[in-house]
């Protein structure tokens, strides 16, 4: 019975693919968290501020890096809103 076989084959394929997709999704989430997660951005910002206080970067470099971080924060919030 081709219909049943097809159904079984598809179910099997789905069962095999699902964990793979979950991993992909997880990786995507982690990447997004890494890029747009507020906690991460906050830590990056603190690190940036420490670098400024240690005089490892100039005020100008700090401003540029801070602007980039804020952009990431906004992007993260936008993505969060879309979902």
């Amino acid at each position, binding site marked *: 019975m081709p219909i049943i076989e097809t159904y079984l084959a598809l179910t099997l394929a789905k069962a095999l693919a699902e964990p793979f997709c979950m991993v992909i999704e997880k990786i995507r989430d982690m990447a997004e968290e890494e890029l747009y997660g507020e906690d991460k951005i*906050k830590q990056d910002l*603190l*690190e940036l501020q*420490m670098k400024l*206080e*240690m*005089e490892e970067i100039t005020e100008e470099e700090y401003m540029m890096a801070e602007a980039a971080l804020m952009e990431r924060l906004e992007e993260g919030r936008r993505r969060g809103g879309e979902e």
Partner: protein
Amino acid sequence: MSAFLANPNLKLIIFGGKGGSGKTTSAAATALHLSKPDPKKRILAMSTDPAHSLGDSFNITIDNKITAINENVWGLEIDSNELLEEYKARHGGVIKKIADRGTYFDKEDIEDFFTQSLPGLDEVMAIIRIADLLKAREYDLIILDTAPTGHTMVLLSLPEQMEKWIHLMDMLMEKHRFVMKTMVGRYRRDECDEFIDSQMEDVRRVRRLLTDATTTEFVPVTIPEPMSIFEIQKAIETLKGYNIPVNSIIVNRVTGRERECPFCSARSEQGERYMQEIEQKFAPYNLVKLPLFPHQIRGESLTEYAQILFEERKYTPPARAEVLPQVTPLAKGGLSDPRSESRTSILNILKKEFVIFGGKGGVGKTSIAAASALYLAQHKPDRKVLAFSTDPAHALSDSFEQHIGNHITPISGLDNLYALEIDGTQMLEDFKQDYRDVIDEIFEKFLGGSGVDVRFDREILQELLSVTPPGLDELMSLRKIMELMKEGDYDLFVLDSAASGHLLRFLELPHLVRDWLKSGFKLLTKYRGVVKLTKATELLLDLSRDIRRILEVFSNPQGTEFVMITIPEEMGVAEMGDLAVSVANLKIPSFHTIINMIIPPTDCGFCVAKSKEQQRYIQEIEAKSPDHAIIYIPLLPHEIRGLENLSELAGIMFGE
């Protein structure tokens, strides 16, 4: 009551009191006098005041090396930074090993911390130096010439604190000992344990000596003036708490019944009043009175001073003719000010945000700071002025004749003048309370796991919270200033600072804290993957920004001014020179020098003799400060206390 320092078994004599009361002179004269009866007795006169004047007093260059004064007297002026370097060279390896075993930091982190300096170093190194000297037993008697009262009390409380620090080191080792016992079955003591034990023994030896009435004596030195009396009264109370023995009190500059000169007569009347107060307040003690001399006591004249001190001869004031037989009295009619523009120029401090008054102890810093704050408040009714004392022996209350203490207190009669006297210990408690959440975060992040580490770490962290850091008063003053600047409630801060040595330590502190913060940030970034201390990081970042702001304000000529105060005497002039160099190195703007306590023109022999001596130093000060506007303030015939007297002083200073 036994005679002055009659106990032949004394091993340690400490002279202490307000700046300018004659501590150094008394210490130097005592050393010379006690060396005479027994040439085999080895005596070391040692100065622990970061602004040393022992060498000036002996008229010999001493510095940070033991220098022979005569056959059996040596002098030493300790340099805490040099001593720290020696200490690090000697014990650095062991300390690093203990830190490596007991903390999570790696060798590189520890090395980084090791390059930093410490606040409150002068007192710590003084105790360590004394401990070393006691251990070596090279001297039969050590005579200490100390910093003005506040910091001397810090010094004397230190052995107890240091025992806690050493205990903390021992706790750091405990984890290592436990692990070794568990793994190897037994623990073998090594150089770290030896070091901790020997340091503890050294500090305990100092503490035992300090409180041993058979071998130690603290000699308060005062003059018949209210602030000086108040300081030794407080000191004696504190000394009782530490069980440090006091038998005699030196009262310097006791005036006779001069009635010929109206100026001397006014001053001696006032002196007599305070002399009575001294006799009442300190009745149980042996009061050793020394006269006001018409000349300075330095070098050879120390012998004369010592003879009166040890009651070997009575002081007879020289007859007028003997003092200065043929001298033309100075012109009458007040002090002429050769630089009248100076008075206009000093008005510029009205526009600043920060005015710091500094100079040797006893030059009149508190009176001038209080008078200036009052003047500024009266003449700028729209600006809120805060007079702020950073000297642990506060005197603002006395100047304003109003209790001030550790809270911002409005000065009665004005609605824009406030005052504050910092209490470092109290503020440390407030600090711990304010940052409870940060402390909790550190506890939670470090102690969240389980196992051996937790037990030890919790104990170490708890112990760490209970110890008092060195340089507490300076650190807390700095923190309070930063807090107040941030809040922006006050437009002008007038700082009544500690005497020059410790004022410098205070002014250097922002740089020092900034270096520590940089090391802290380095660690936080390095271990960011391991431990996230968000609140602590935010706190340190805030601190770092505030420090940067302070450094900006301190170095901005529009915002800050350091006003040098001096008196026309050898030691005043010498200290002024050292202070000026350091202030310039710290890039703190300074445009004015105040010469205080100038004897006004009279035709009295005593005044003329003093005045002539002063003129020489006035010229020296003028030559030393070519870029400074100089303000000349006469010695007033009465004390400066209360708003009326302060207004009078301000009037002279600002030219009204």
